């Protein structure tokens, strides 16, 4: 007997499937059977599918589907439905468009939604300054609570200077 798939090699793997009372037989050679197995394994689990499952949605109602398809990114055309199904986004603009929808997912993955790491050197000047201001404001609060007023005054001046710089940068 020859293999059902390639019709070249002799079949060595024989499978019988019972679908709603219909018996289906399949005979494959070693190579085709292995390829089939590998295929099945590959589709078994993927991170995007897993993530998609984490996003709460009631995708079955047609109304909801229409809604999900109508929200889309104007740069790359990715719809909210595609994001929900694939678990990934299409471009940087998608993060702007879908921000609120995917925030819960991001929080579930990372435990929070605020970047504190590296910032691009060339374009990130303002971002870095603003972050510095935030950090100093935190310190200022601490200083006030612990009644370290001299320290607080120094921090207040530093914050003012930085804020001036931020405004200048944004105008320029």
């Amino acid at each position: 007997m020859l293999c059902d798939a390639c019709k070249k090699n002799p079949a060595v793997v024989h499978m019988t499937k019972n679908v709603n009372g219909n018996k289906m037989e399949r005979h494959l050679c070693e190579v085709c059977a292995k390829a089939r197995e590998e295929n099945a394994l590959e589709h078994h689990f993927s991170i995007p599918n897993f993530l998609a499952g984490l996003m709460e949605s009631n995708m079955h109602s047609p109304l909801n589907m229409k809604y999900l398809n109508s929200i889309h990114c104007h740069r790359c055309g990715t719809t909210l439905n595609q994001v929900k199904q694939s678990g990934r986004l299409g471009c940087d603009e998608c993060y702007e468009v879908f921000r609120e929808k995917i925030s819960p997912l991001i929080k579930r993955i990372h435990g929070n939604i605020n970047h504190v790491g590296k910032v691009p050197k060339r374009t990130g000047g303002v971002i870095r300054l603003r972050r510095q201001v935030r950090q100093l404001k935190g310190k200022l609060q601490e200083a006030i609570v612990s009644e370290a007023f001299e320290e607080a005054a120094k921090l207040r001046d530093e914050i003012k200077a930085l804020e001036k710089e931020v405004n200048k940068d944004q105008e320029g």
Partner: protein
Amino acid sequence: MSEWMKKTGPESDIVISSRIRIARNLEETPFPYLLDEARGEEVVQRVYQAVIEGNSALKDDFKLLSMKDLDKIERLKYIEKHLISPDLAKNTTQGNMLVNRQESISIMLNEEDHIRIQCILPGFQLDETWNLADKIDDLIEEKVKYAFDEQLGYLTSCPTNLGTGIRASVMMHLPVLNMTGYINNIFHASNQIGITIRGIYGEGTEFLGNIFQISNQVTLGITEEEIIKNLKAVVTQILQKERMMRGTLLEEKSIELEDRIFRSYGILKSARIINATEAMKLISDVKLGVCLGLLKDTTLTLENMNYLMAMIQLGHMQSHFKMELKDHERDVKRADFIRSIL
């Protein structure tokens, strides 16, 4: 052969390599899976120009390789060297890589993200590896505008890489922790602090050759330095535990352990047919014997053990014998090769 495979580094008796991967994307450009061939090529050229026009001594070392120009064996070899991912190797329309001469830096282009910078060094040198990757990142950023958001950090195709976009991982040889089952305690504990432990070929694979990959999971809301510090702390603890248990075994002069090591050495030196799984298992035993000082011979060095582990993989074997090897043939050639080294 990549530097991390042939050289040793700090703690090389246990730590094989340290690796950092940084995910980056270009501003205002759809992620690779939405790009057609022409726009994919545009991404490649922009990054390539940024690297060769940059002010870094590193730039002269780089060469650009397109997946479509590499044959199957070459691509497999790069996967085995951990310089590219299987996904990039499959992308023969847009997939490209920039790689340096020492093969300590590779930049994957049009993988899941536009840019994936990878640095890999032998032994336990996470800080050095991060510094290198950080430099390459700055070099590219001089000429290219990255997709970045003030709140979410560097934007990536998959939300699991958002923020810093970095994955730090350390490859370790842990035969004794695995043998004693103690590794399960470590799995459990590390999972709770956002550290993942996997086999060499990723999730769900057996721990072939007692090799484990330890890496960070969370990339957002934590600085690069913290990620590296945390991982270093975990790796250091695992390292000490493995070393301590090796010491105990040696003190006990366990005849069973000695028997296992010498048997494995005997099989490797005599076998005529051997598959990769069995070979990895036996080399792992012999490597442990070498580290414990139980096996002594001029050919029995740490470097040779690492060399063997790298070379018995399919891509390297085929490239060494300059031919495509079928199932049975490759097992015979593998046995030949191992005997030629030991």
